[in-house]
């Protein structure tokens, strides 16, 4: 057993921190697209459009039922062999696509449950003033469902941030990939991976604080 090389670890911090923007970019873009897609999927699951509903169920089942890593490999290494236009796709784009599709399946289910949790009276009030389905969803139901779903959605965002570490398997030099390279150069795997673990941990902790504030903000309208 050898002692931890603290000075090496400290020196590594700024190197790895410089990759945080890329990590946040992938997770942020993935989250935005996943939220949009998941909302659409969830609304479809509530409204149940014939035929489309079956496809949505299949989509959700597949992307919840297979590992993210497998999906990323399918997109990045697999699909371009079948669909030639995908050969242009770079690792970051593939990672964002994979994260989007994977997490939208999970988020669709929690948004669907949240929509079902919006009180019946809210639907009826929206109908009574003559709103179309789309207006009702956009103006009344989804905003209220968003509040119900917010804690779980933030959890998925946290999962997504950690999920970006898999992008290094697509050849993207992001935070995890950089740590891997550093470690391979110095043979100080333990130090490098410990630093990377702590960095992810800190990011997630900061987000958790943000989550608390978000929930207070969202609950403002409902405070007596």
């Amino acid at each position, binding site marked *: 057993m050898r002692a931890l090389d603290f000075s090496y670890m400290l020196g590594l911090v700024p190197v790895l921190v410089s990759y945080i923007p890329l990590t946040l970019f992938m997770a942020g873009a993935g989250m935005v697209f996943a939220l949009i897609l998941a909302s659409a999927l969830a609304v479809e699951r509530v409204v149940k459009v014939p035929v489309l509903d079956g496809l949505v169920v299949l989509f959700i089942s597949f992307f919840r039922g297979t590992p993210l890593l497998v999906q990323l490999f399918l997109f990045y290494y697999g699909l371009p062999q079948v669909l030639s236009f995908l050969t242009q796709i770079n690792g970051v784009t593939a990672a964002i696509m994979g994260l989007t599709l994977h997490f939208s399946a999970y988020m669709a289910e929690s948004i669907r449950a949240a929509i079902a949790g919006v009180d019946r009276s809210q639907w009826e*009030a929206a109908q009574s003033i003559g709103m179309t389905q789309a207006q009702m969803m956009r103006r009344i139901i989804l905003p209220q469902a968003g509040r119900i779903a917010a804690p779980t959605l933030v959890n998925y965002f946290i999962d997504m941030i950690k999920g970006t570490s898999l992008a290094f398997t697509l050849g993207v030099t992001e935070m995890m990939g950089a740590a891997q390279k550093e470690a391979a150069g110095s043979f100080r795997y333990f130090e490098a991976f410990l630093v990377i673990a702590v960095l992810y941990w800190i990011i997630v902790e900061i987000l958790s604080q943000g989550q608390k504030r978000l929930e207070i903000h969202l609950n403002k309208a409902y405070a007596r």
Partner: protein
Amino acid sequence: MIGIQGLTKRFGDTVVLDAIDLDIADGERVVVIGPSGTGKSTLLRCLNFLDAPQAGTIRIGDLTVDAAQATRQQILGLRRRTAFVFQNYALFANKTAKQNIMEALVTVQGRPVQEAEARATEILAQTGLADKAESYPAALSGGQQQRVGIGRAMALGADLMLFDEPTSALDPEWVGEVLDLMRQVAEQRQTMLIVTHEMQFAREIADRVVFMDGGRIVEQGPPSQVLDAPQDERLQRFLRRVG
């Protein structure tokens, strides 16, 4: 002019509305009374398709809808010609009092935000809630919420206002202020169809009282006739019970 013919609603095998016929003149205030479970609320809810009737025709202003084959556009048309006041208020929980009143004006009627805001402010003043404009429903008392609910309905400029037991969920202390506001609405010659158990209020406000029992209209006429000289034995029994 409102015309209802043969309006029929079944839940499974239970007939809740049994071919109801009812005409309402412009500016007329009709109060529906009757034992609970007799189809009064369902009648109101069928007129704007919150519950879809199986048969009958509904005519509101220039729109006539055959219930059996109502299209989505026709249903929206009925909803845009009516305003509904709910027993449980049903204010939009994610919107302030003012936004609740503005919502239909902006989203459904497509009016400019400024105009809608001015109208909402005017209505809030009328309902005595000017100082609650920015309050969310959760921060309002039951009586205040229902006044916003009525304000939301007033803003629509509907051909027909439907009141579904608007005071039944209220603590007794709030009933008076809600009834006062309904009197104000009535004074503007708004066509109203009101389901209520407030007999004194019915007597005072109604041009016509309709007594329903078992999904049918059993007796109707001016309050002095229906409430003071009831003919049907079921109506007599009902009036004795509600005192």
